[in-house]
């Protein structure tokens, strides 16, 4: 009966390389801890494996053929239909809605405003340090700065002594503290930029993945029977300074094996760095006494090929690109209040504590989609899920092309 807050956390280019999805290499204790108190959808898929189309699809609960957004160059409200977004729906129900970091894809795709004021109660926050993200910020062996793919840095030497996801977490923590005592429920979306390339991350996270323990993808070659149309040439990776020096042939590569291993090391390190930010956010939620009345959703816009099929990108229909984590923490449903007063989400510093162990509370193996998120989180928060869209729904402002997965929280999985 009491309306629940929502903390909606999005990662960027995060495949299911998490401990709670069975990855034995990665160190992701804070997300694994969240999963241990949540329902984990093991087979969740996006609708198109690139940022703007995927985010617009998930946040409107419409497939790309309905948003008609397949690239980064149009705003759905003027290009296809005036569709209501997930945060807009919460805002219309009296919630205070706020966006921190990359939630909508920035630029034309969200009207250069992150869809404010439709979706958000206040303008979206973007970390100031993100403007350096694609600049020459990585120190090479010669001491000069380059725009590298592999870009582990000493954070104290970066502009402002910070990095974008650290800044976003600081802002989200500040907002949570402000909202904690308000009587108005909140919907806070926090979008992290990592593990998206470039791997501009704090250098200490590399030590979690010694290079001599890293391996190649199990299938690092382009499959013989793969139609050429299905292959993507990972142009964004090729453009980075350190990759250009490798003089890789177009379109099929391959990248030298020693560099492949280093890309994988940096991707995993970026995941652990992002996991630390998630941990900071969740422990703040807990410390403020909000863990008992806040739904937490964790997901990503799409995955990323870590060398599988000779690819180093999203931009495909392969499962490594389309499968994403999808985790729902619903207090009182996926877990119950600990009356002994133990913390729900104590922060785990992976750089200081290497051993931990969690087991997923509830898993669903059946296939689900990110268009399902809108009706499901609405329903779990106590709002009515939007009705299903008609076959042609360009004129329908509020409807869903997904399924409400609320029943999956109560019933055993069949089939």
């Amino acid at each position, binding site marked *: 009966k009491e309306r629940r807050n929502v903390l909606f956390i999005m990662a960027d280019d995060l495949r299911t390389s998490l401990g709670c999805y069975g990855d034995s290499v990665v160190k992701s204790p804070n997300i694994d801890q969240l999963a241990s108190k949540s329902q984990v959808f093991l*087979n969740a*898929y*996006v*609708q*198109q*494996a*690139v940022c703007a189309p995927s985010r617009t699809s998930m946040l409107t609960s419409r*497939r*790309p*053929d309905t948003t*008609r957004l*397949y*690239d*980064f*160059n*149009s705003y759905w409200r003027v290009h296809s239909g005036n569709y209501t977004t997930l945060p807009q729906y919460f805002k219309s129900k009296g919630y205070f809605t706020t966006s921190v970091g990359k939630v909508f894809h920035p630029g034309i795709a969200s009207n250069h405003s992150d869809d404010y004021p439709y979706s958000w109660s206040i303008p979206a926050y973007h970390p100031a340090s993100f403007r350096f993200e694609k600049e020459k910020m990585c120190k090479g062996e010669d001491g000069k700065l380059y725009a590298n793919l592999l870009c582990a840095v000493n954070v104290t030497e970066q502009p402002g002594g910070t990095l974008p996801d650290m800044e976003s977490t600081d802002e989200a923590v500040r907002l949570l503290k402000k909202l904690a005592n308000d009587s108005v429920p909140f919907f806070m979306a926090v979008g992290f930029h990592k593990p998206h390339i470039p791997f501009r991350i704090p250098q200490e996270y590399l030590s979690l993945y010694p290079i001599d323990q890293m391996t190649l993808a*199990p*299938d690092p070659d382009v*499959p013989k*029977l*793969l*139609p*050429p*149309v*299905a*292959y*993507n*040439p*990972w*142009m*964004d990776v090729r453009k980075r300074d350190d990759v250009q020096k490798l003089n890789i042939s*177009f*379109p*099929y590569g391959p990248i030298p094996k020693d560099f492949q291993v280093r890309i994988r090391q940096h991707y995993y390190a970026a995941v652990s760095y992002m996991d630390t930010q998630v941990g900071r956010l969740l422990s703040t939620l807990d410390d403020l006494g909000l863990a008992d009345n806040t739904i937490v959703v964790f997901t990503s816009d799409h995955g990323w090929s870590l060398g*599988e*099929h000779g690819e180093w*990108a999203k*931009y*495909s*229909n*392969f*499962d490594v690109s*389309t499968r994403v984590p999808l985790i729902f923490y619903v207090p009182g449903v996926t877990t119950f209040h600990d009356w002994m007063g133990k913390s729900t989400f104590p922060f785990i510093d992976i750089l200081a504590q290497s051993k931990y162990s969690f087991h997923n509370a509830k898993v669903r*193996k*059946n*296939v*689900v*989609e990110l268009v399902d998120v809108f009706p499901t989180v609405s329903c779990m928060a106590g709002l009515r899920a939007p009705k299903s869209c008609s076959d042609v729904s360009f004129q329908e402002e509020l409807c869903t*092309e997904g399924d409400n997965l609320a*029943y999956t929280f109560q*019933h055993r999985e*069949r*089939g």
Partner: protein
Amino acid sequence: ENEEAISFSQYPRPADAPQVNSDLPDLKDIKIMGYSLRSWDYRYTLWLGFNPKTFQVNVSDVHAGELYMLADDPGQDNNIYSDIDHRVMMKKMAGLP
């Protein structure tokens, strides 16, 4: 709840062979759309002709296909599209949302 759980994804391409804008073609350059249907057991993908002005897909203009049986091929490396009778899959694709 008793229906087969299926997910759909799609990806656009400007041409049959990889080129510099294959990763992220602008709408006007999209000529082919790869529609994927996946369940527990398989992923089936058809790469179909696409008109970016009308947003229409031409289901009779099949550029390529993929089929991976996930029990034997979880990494999706062995495309067996050419080995199967496509009528059953085409029926499923006709039910695309």
